[in-house]
Structures are given as structure tokens and as C-alpha cells.
């Protein structure tokens, strides 16, 4: 049986709350900060023109 949208959403929410309860907010914020840093680095990398092949 394939999951439908509500079950996917509820399981994600439960996972999220569970993860925050176990690891704490500070880790969550750190993950966000790392993601922001990585996406910014990727954006920089993708803004630099390179010699055409």
C-alpha cells in the first residue's frame, strides 16, 4: 500500500517533533546554519563563469 499525503505529512511532523525532543534546539539551529552556509557556497560557485568547453 502506498502512503497518501496526510500520512506522509503526519509521519514527517512526528519525526520532526521527535528529532527536536531528542537532539535539542541548538542542534536544529546548527543544521539550519550549516545548510545556509552550504547553499550560499553553492550559489557563489554557480555565479562564477568558467571557460566554455
Amino acid at each position, binding site marked *: 500500500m*502506498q*502512503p*497518501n*499525503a496526510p500520512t*506522509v505529512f503526519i509521519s514527517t511532523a512526528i519525526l*520532526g517533533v521527535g528529532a527536536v525532543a531528542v537532539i535539542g*534546539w541548538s542542534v*536544529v*539551529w546548527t*543544521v*539550519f*546554519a550549516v*545548510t*545556509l*552556509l552550504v*547553499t*550560499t557556497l*553553492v*550559489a*557563489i*560557485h*554557480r*555565479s*562564477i*563563469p*568558467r*571557460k*566554455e*568547453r
Partner: protein
Amino acid sequence: MKDIYLLIPAHDEEVGIEAAMASVEAQTKRPTRRIVVSDNSTDRTVELARARTGWEVWETVDNTGKKGGALNQAWARLEPALSGSDYIVTMDADTILDERFVEAAFAKYEQAIARGRTLGGVCANFSGLQLDTALGVLQMMEYARAEKINRSRGGLAPVLAGAATMFSVEALRSVSRMRGHLYEPVLTEDYELSIALRVNGYTTMAPRTCKARTDLMPTVGMLWAQRLRWYRGAFECLRSHGFKRGTRADIGWLAFSLWAAASRWLFLVALTATVLTIGHMAFSPWLLLLFAFASGIRMVQVRDLGWKYVLLAGVMVEELYYAFFLEAALWRSFYLAFFGRTAGNW
């Protein structure tokens, strides 16, 4: 002698077909044959196309495969007469080619041959046709960024957009020999063909000299439908091809995009939860500096469009809504591709 055959698949395109054909007639390097492939048109598409000199107009027979099916029929008809050194250009009936598109794409192939490279397809970098709305401006900025991203890859392009691409006949034959036809009945037949070419060892490019303009989506609903089709089509193509040469980089990029999109939404949720439970929120100056830096990058990416666009990118607010919109479409497409009960229609 290297011949160039240009095909315009068209289904009820009376509004834009003449402008598209005029852009072909204005090419600095003229295709050997120019063909409009009308697919089940019920408007004046065929009449308008036949009225122009120097064009052939073909009509599909019992085609149920929409654009890809029309091009498959045209390929089957043309293929016996083609030599391996010929080229085929396909373009949409709502696309306006830059007058040097064919010349620039041909030159890229000549360069690739001289360097011993196997180039399978050369696609245009797109900008939008005039649409004086906020949605139009945001799409223009998105297209400008896509061009910058292609430049950062040294001109390599993951998708040979059906809207304007020149293919090498030899490369197309490598695909048709494998499966008996060119285009598969999927949502994004152009992306699927791009993957098939890369899997066969061909490079796919969008050189900076190749340009075209295409229609922008005028309403949020149409944009949503377009993006669902693009993203879902991409997920389904990658799933059917699997993790191998030609798909690895795209799978990695989509996985990263999904994570980045989820992270932005979860960040908002976490922010709200924190404010509700603690009552306030303090940002580190370093985080604000990072935001400012990200804003600066976004400004640089659209500088070719002019100062108004740069200013808008700097403010970021409107683009933030737009990013949320696209990310929602990305996740919805992911869900439909992997858990949707109905198959995507061609």
C-alpha cells in the same frame, strides 16, 4: 556537405507560429529545410504555415503522443535521407530564435569536432518574452540565473530544452537505434532525451552565444502547472534511468535542492515555534551578515537585466515568496512522482 533540418512541432499555435517562423527566416545561417509539423491542429496553424514560402508543412497521422509523438513521426520520415554529419534543430512554436542561433550552434559543433569531442545537443539560453507583471519579472530573473549557472558549468547543460535545440544526427541515431524511436512518452520528453544522449556518451551544452526567447507563464496557476510538469517529469525520468553515468550529477543536485527547500520551510516552522514558546527571537550578527551576502550574490546574478532587477533581487522579499512557491512545487512533484496514484500524462 552538412545539412541542417529545422522542425517546429505545432498544435493549435496560430497565435505564435508566424513570429516563430519569421525568426527562422531571419537566421544568419539558413537551415537546408524548414518544416512545420502540425499535430492535430484545429485552428489556422496549417493555413498560416502554408502561406509562407520556403516551408514544408507536414501533418501527423494518428498521433496520440503529442509533441514527442509528432517529432517521432517527423524523425521516422526524415531519417533515411540523413547523413551522420547532418543536424536537426527542434524549436517550439512559441519560441523566438536569436538571429544567430543556428550559426552559433553550428560553430559550437565545428569546434567540438576539431577538439575531438562528442557533442550531442546544443541548446539555447532562454530569456522571457515581454510580460509586464511581477510574475513576469520574477521568471525573467529565474531565467537569467539559469544562464549564469550554465556559464558556471563551462556551458554544460543538463536539459536540452525542446524550445530550441540543435542535435547531431549521429547522436540521435545512437538513441533511436537503441529503442526504435527518439522521444519517450513521458512528461518531459526533452529532458529524457538529454539523459539518453548523455548515457550514450554525448555532451549536452548551452553555449553563451546561443540565445532564444520564450513565453513566460502569465498566471500563478499556469506557472504552478508548468513547474509540476517539469519537476515531476525530471523525477520520473531519473527514476526510470537510475543512478548511472549521465544521471548522477542531476540526482545529486535534485537531492540537494529538496533538502535546501525543506530546510527553508522547516526554518520558518522552527522560527515560529521559538517565538511562540520563548516569546522572542535574536539573530546572530553573523547570520545577518550571511543573509546580506546571499542577497549580494542574487543581485550579481541578475545584473545583465538592469538596475531595477538588481534592486529587486537585493530586497529579496518578492523573490523569497517566489522561491517558496517553486520549492512547494518541487516537493509536490516529488510526492506525485513517487507516491502519486495516477501516471503523469504526456
